[in-house]
């Protein structure tokens, strides 16, 4: 590792917002992934057909999401 390794000056300080904000794009990706498990081809649909719905059927029910 180079000298660019970021180590918090103290464990008693919060992580700076400027370090966190660029990574929140991953939150959008995570929410999209959850959407596919939870609702795709159920309430709304991006991909036509019912394959995604049927494939993820058991997980969707057991994780607590409404399904057919």
């Amino acid at each position, binding site marked *: *590792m180079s000298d660019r390794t970021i180590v918090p000056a103290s464990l008693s300080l919060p*992580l700076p917002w400027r370090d966190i904000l660029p990574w929140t794009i991953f939150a959008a990706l995570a929410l999209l992934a959850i959407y596919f*498990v939870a609702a795709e081809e159920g309430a709304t649909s991006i991909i036509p057909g019912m394959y995604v719905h049927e*494939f993820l059927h058991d*997980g969707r029910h057991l994780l607590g999401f409404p*399904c*057919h």
Partner: protein
Amino acid sequence: MVPNLLVRGMLVGLIAGLLVFGFGKVFGEPQVDRAISFEAAMDEEKAKADEANGIHAVPEPELVSRPVQAGWGLFTGVMVYSAAFGGLFALVFAAVYRRAVNMGPRATSALLAATGFVCVYLVPNLKYPANPPSVGEPETIGYRTALYFSMIVLSVGAVVLASALRKQLAVRHGEWTAALAAIGVYLLAVIVAGSILPSVDEVPGSFPAGVLWHFRVASFGMQAVMWATLGLVFGALTERAFTDARVLGPAARP
């Protein structure tokens, strides 16, 4: 720091996913199978009645076989869900660490996971409980999904507000009073939201109550396994990483 947390969160999410899959396979799938048997019996009765009235039903084509749904399908769903929540968990951890509460990494992680379990799953599910196959009208899926997601959004929003309130009150009134007041405000908010939002009750009268109960317990257990794994494993690994970073410092790293 943040990318490390993010990768760690998703990896811990995958570990959690494996455990959730195992739990779901053992305790959840038997209930799904029982619900599908019930559905099949109902469909058969309906088909017989239709036949008597001269209506010939065309059987629905099976897109995905039951073994695939209960195997790779369940595995994929659970792994994607858990890894995604692992990533979200890490980002929220990065944001709240030493901000929302002034605790070490393990305690922050455990508290965050407990809060996530309650506000993302438990409370929305008390209003709109998980249902096995054959419960629920296909026509109302959009309506039911909208209601369930509304309840999640309201519950998460209430936690954010309650947490901000707790921080304000803690300065003047002490930790205990602040924490209890925040919990009270959260509960009040979700009870009000829950009583305003319409109820959904589509369980067929003849559906076996035992199957419904065991299905919901299995669903509860899967979520509890996921959140507990996220909170405890992420916290332990992060505490170790933080401590190593402090002891070694950047100069000591190879």
